[in-house]
């Protein structure tokens, strides 16, 4: 299952580009490439620090995973990723874990665990599903 070095390299380069865009962006950053990478059937499942079942989001129901990101970019936050792990299901499907850390004035102000699934559709990688687990605050 890990015998796809070419596919892994190519997917990793794609995920690096997206992550750099999100990390380095400012209020004027064009988030078009990020938005284009969301599959039309995107589903998100977000858990906060409580014990309830995750809240689920559906792009077709009008959920926009970038509302929070646009707000963050406009408010002087930066972000970084830690401990990323990428596994290819096959040449056209990838599963990714990372910690997403939000930084304000040199302080880590938020940390979330993400698990994402991507599929290649007509030659382009698309985010199909993600689960987010809020660690802190």
């Amino acid at each position: 299952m890990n015998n796809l070095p070419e596919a892994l390299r190519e997917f990793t380069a794609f995920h690096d580009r997206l992550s750099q865009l999100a990390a380095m962006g400012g209020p004027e950053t064009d988030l078009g490439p990020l938005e284009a990478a969301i599959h039309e059937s995107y589903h998100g499942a977000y858990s906060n620090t409580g014990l309830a079942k995750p809240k689920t989001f559906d792009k077709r129901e009008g959920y926009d995973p970038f509302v929070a990101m646009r707000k963050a970019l406009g408010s002087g936050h930066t972000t970084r990723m830690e401990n990323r792990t990428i596994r290819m299901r096959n040449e056209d499907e990838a599963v990714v874990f990372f910690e997403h850390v939000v930084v304000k004035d040199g302080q880590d102000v938020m940390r979330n665990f993400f698990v994402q699934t991507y599929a290649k559709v007509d030659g382009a990688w698309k985010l199909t599903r993600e689960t987010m687990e809020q660690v802190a605050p």
Partner: protein
Amino acid sequence: MNHLPENLLAAFTAVHDRINELWATARTVADLEPLEAFCHETYHGTYGGPGLDKVQPFERKDGLEGVRQAIASGNTTRIENRTIRMRSVTEAVVFFERIFAKGDRDVARLFTVENWRLVDGAWKLMRETVEQVAE
């Protein structure tokens, strides 16, 4: 999130290590009994996998049944790439890859995010999300 004492992380890590050791050495369903005690009575989770559009919720009995089936089928299990973060003195969040193997061959790999809570002095698994990478 960075002001918690280091020994707190070390103490939780030791508990998680013990549980993984139990898993890794389990050969029969009876060996799983001590593990089941770590799953809180309200433990629940979600499962995602190849071909699934949305994650599927599961309850305690479903989660435990999956573990029993894996061990009963003769598979062994180990974890890789663990990351542990303490939310507070009584809460921990853990990521790892769980691999099931048949002999020397890896037969399944799952990304797991777990939520743990200290309940009456004992760490309990409260909630988890699982994403199956491959059969």
